[in-house]
Structure formats: structure tokens, C-alpha cells
């Protein structure tokens, strides 16, 4: 479970556009996290009111980094940060992926690839399956940390044309860790359960507190409502109610 949560003013080391509307934000300092955990970020006063959750993309001696897509106002403001700017971050939050022995498949679609980079680094020897809407990015970086990297894209640019579920075969894996929009996770659930491979998915919900106090980020599981921010964001796929 989560250890001590830190509320910090972090310094931006860099904030680089890695693809159309996608940025990689690096913060200087000494942080901690397990793969699949996230931080709440804010670089604004009161508009938007709430902080924004982002998964840990990477963590090393120099600092921590986040890969994000510009969606609305919050991520739009993040994209305008420059080196030296200050930003408020709270974390690490959430449970993170369990550590499993054997062959691990990391499967990500869209911005779901964000938490997989750090996971690939920590769970060394894992294979990464990355699904992009269009032109892939950061593939070389993934190739440095993952055993194998397989790429698909909706347009066929830079990889197999199609969804990542078209090229991912769970056979031979001891576990699959996935993050992507929900429909793809539901598809993966069917594929993995058919193959008998344990699947652990990272879910998303709008969040207020991010620490488990407000009960705002509820998702339905077989045990009733669970908090994405604290009971998750990683859930055994078998416990998620995929149709509601």
C-alpha cells in the first residue's frame, strides 16, 4: 500500500512536445513511485479548481517525468510550462502494479502507454505492445527498456495497421499489465481471460482529492464501488464490472 504522500513544489526541468498535442514533462528532485502509481499536478491558482492526475512516466536520479496529452484547460496550462517554472505535485498515489514473476506483457493504447515506460524499466524483461492513433512516438525509448516492442496504429503509420488488440496474443505470458481507454481494456479482458492470463488494468475516473478521502472516483467492481485513486488505479481485470 501507499507509503508517505508528499506535497511538493517541484521545478520544471523540461517540458517537450513529443508528438502532436503530446508533451513530456520532467521535474527536478527526489521523488518515489511504483510503476502504475500517479501524482496529482497543478500549475494554476483556481481555474481549474482541482489538480490533475498523471501517471508516472519515469523516475530516475534526476527527477520524475509525466507524459500527457493536451485535453482541456488543465493539461493545456501544463503544456505552457517552461524550465524553471514551479509546479505543485502530490504523490505518489494509488497502488501500482503488483510484482509478478515470469513473462510480463505491457499493453498500452493511446496515452495509456504513459505508465508502461516506468513499468518496463522496473519489471525488466517485459514486452511492450504500444497502440497509437497515428504516428508513433517514443518507440526508441521504449526499445531501450523493454525486451521487445510491438507497435500498431489506427492509420498504419509506423507499425501494424489496427488496434493493439489485433497484434497482442496473451499466449505465453504470465501476466498482462494494461492501460488504455476503457473499450480496449474490456477487449483485453476477453482476450486474456480466454487465454487464462491474469490481467491488471489501470482505470481512470475524474478525481477530486486523489488520496481516497472524497469517494468521488468510484468504479464498480465485484466488491462494490472502489476508489480508483486509492484502491486502484490498478485493478485485477477479473474484479472490474466491464459492463457498468
Amino acid at each position: 500500500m501507499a507509503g508517505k504522500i508528499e506535497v511538493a513544489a517541484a521545478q520544471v526541468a523540461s517540458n517537450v512536445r513529443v508528438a502532436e498535442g503530446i508533451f513530456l514533462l520532467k521535474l527536478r528532485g527526489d521523488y518515489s513511485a511504483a510503476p502504475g502509481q500517479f501524482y496529482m499536478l497543478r500549475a494554476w491558482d483556481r481555474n481549474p479548481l482541482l489538480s490533475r492526475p498523471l501517471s508516472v512516466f519515469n523516475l530516475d536520479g534526476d527527477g520524475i517525468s509525466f507524459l500527457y496529452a493536451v485535453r482541456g484547460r488543465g493539461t493545456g496550462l501544463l503544456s505552457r510550462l517552461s524550465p524553471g517554472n514551479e509546479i505543485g505535485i502530490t504523490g505518489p498515489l494509488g497502488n501500482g502494479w503488483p510484482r509478478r514473476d515470469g513473462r510480463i506483457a505491457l499493453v498500452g493504447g493511446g496515452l495509456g502507454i504513459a505508465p508502461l515506460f516506468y513499468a518496463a524499466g522496473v519489471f525488466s524483461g517485459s514486452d511492450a505492445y504500444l497502440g497509437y492513433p497515428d504516428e508513433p512516438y517514443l518507440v526508441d525509448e521504449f526499445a531501450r527498456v523493454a525486451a521487445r516492442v510491438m507497435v500498431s496504429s489506427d492509420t498504419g503509420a509506423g507499425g501494424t495497421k489496427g488496434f493493439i488488440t489485433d497484434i497482442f496474443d496473451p499466449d505465453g505470458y504470465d501476466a498482462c499489465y494494461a492501460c488504455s481507454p476503457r473499450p480496449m481494456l474490456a477487449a483485453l479482458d476477453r482476450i486474456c481471460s480466454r487465454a487464462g492470463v491474469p490481467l491488471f488494468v489501470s482505470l481512470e475516473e475524474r478525481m477530486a482529492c486523489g488520496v481516497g478521502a472524497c469517494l468521488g472516483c468510484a468504479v464498480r467492481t465485484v466488491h462494490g464501488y472502489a476508489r480508483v485513486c486509492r484502491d486502484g488505479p490498478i485493478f485485477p481485470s477479473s474484479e472490474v464490472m466491464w459492463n457498468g
Partner: protein
Amino acid sequence: MGDMRVVVGGLRLRNPVIAASGTFGFGAEYAEIYDPARLGAVCTKGLTLMPRQGNPPPRLWETAGGLLNSIGLQNPGIEAFIREELPRMKAQGITVITNVWGNDPGEYERSVARLCDSSVDAIEINVSCPNVSRGGPVGEDAIRTAAVVRRSRKVCTLPLWVKLPPAGGLAVARTAQEEGADAVSAVNTFRGMAIDIKTGKPVFVNVVAGLSGPAIKPIALRIVYELAAALTIPVVGIGGIGDWRDALEFIMAGAHAVQVGTANFVDPLAAVKIVAGLEKYMEENKITDWEGIRGNAQQ
């Protein structure tokens, strides 16, 4: 140095800053960030006799300077609370106020009686949750409120606070006072809503949700000001308090203590920062106790 302590409706607090119900869980989560015993008290998530699973998602929606929530009183039930949460809270040195909700006066009575028989420090009767019943909450109706408070009071020797909705008016507050409440807390969230223009449908399954945060502060402050003038029992001010200046406005309006809700989400340290800010203010302005400024804005 100023004396931060205050007695509010029979409850002794080390300072007047309380974590608001539903925004601080049972204190365990924020305890990983700071020691909740540094606050005047922690008011628990709303409790019910039986466990409640709460409302279906989405449960949150941001608005300009505000937050709509439709949690629906998800809670483990009073027995589980007393068994699993309360001992830890007491061991941590937290002053515990339990927020409690019921389907009818009888259920309130049973819940209050059970809590009174535990080691909680005070009970806050929630007659103001906008997320559990269609139409307005009980606290918008003086007669129904009277029944709840009367029956609760009869079985309760602990400090008993009544948490009011913003639309209750002075009549309901006076009723609470007459029926023996030791204090009122004001206010709970405002009934608001949002529509997703992409679908053309209300965002929340229940349509209506509760609005909190800085947006509501001017209205909440006016209500607290009016309550403080109208009642003889203390008022606990709630609504959009984000920093010590906001807290001070409520105290100057007449509040004995304040509760900090949504601000905890904006800055996890908000509540302790308010304690520190008030302490500094007292010192710099040579204020020795709250009597010196409480209600100063009243005419």
C-alpha cells in the same frame, strides 16, 4: 501568543479549524500527509445505520470556482465505523465529530443513540445532504427537522450539532436551537446541476448534485452572518473556505469555528495552513482569544 482553543456547543477544540464531512474520509488518508490531530477536529464522512454503496458514477464535475458532487453518502455503516475507524482515530488523538444521516427520524434516533454509546466526541446531524433524496433535504423543512433533532437530543448527551442546508432559512435553524441542538453547522452544499452538451443529458444520474468550493463562499458567509445574529447557540461556518483570510471572515461574521471541505482537494495542506495562518494573525494583531474578533462584523 493567542489562545487558539475554543469551546463550540459543548465541544472543546484545540483550534477552530475542522475538516468538513465527506472531504476528509475518516482522517486516515490525509494522515499520510500530516497529523490530523493538528486540526481542531475531523468531521467524518456521513454515516448511516446500514452501509450505503453511494451513487453511480460520475460523482464529480468541476464548475467555475466550484465542485459538484454526487457521492450519495457511501459509507460502511455506523457499526463498521465504530469497529474499524474510530479506535484508530482516537488513538491518533483526533477529536472526532461524526456526521450522521437517516431516512427518517427513527433512524436518526437509533444512529445517534448508537454513536452516543461510543467514544466519539460530538455528533453532527446531517439534515442537509442534497444527494440522497429527490426534492429538498429534511433541513429545508422546519417541522421535519424538529422531529429529527428532538428524537436525537432525547437519546444523546454528547454535543449535538445540526448541519443545515443553505436553503433552510432562519426558521429551521431556530427550530434546531429550540429542540436542543448545541450548535448549528452551516452550510452543506447547494443544490446544483450540470448538463453535458454533447449528450444533452444531465451529467449526474440523480440530476441534482451538491455545489461546494470558493464559488459558494459569499452566500455561505451571508447565511452564517444571519444565523449568528439570530441564534444564541454557536454557529460553525462552512462553505468555500480556502485560506485563513476566508476563515477569518467567517469568524468575524460570528462563527465559533469553521470547517474546511473542498479546499483539501485544492491543496492537501489547506486545513493545517489555515490553522497556522490564524495563529499568525492572532499574534500579529495581539488578539488573545477568539472573543476579541468573533462577530465583530455584526452591527
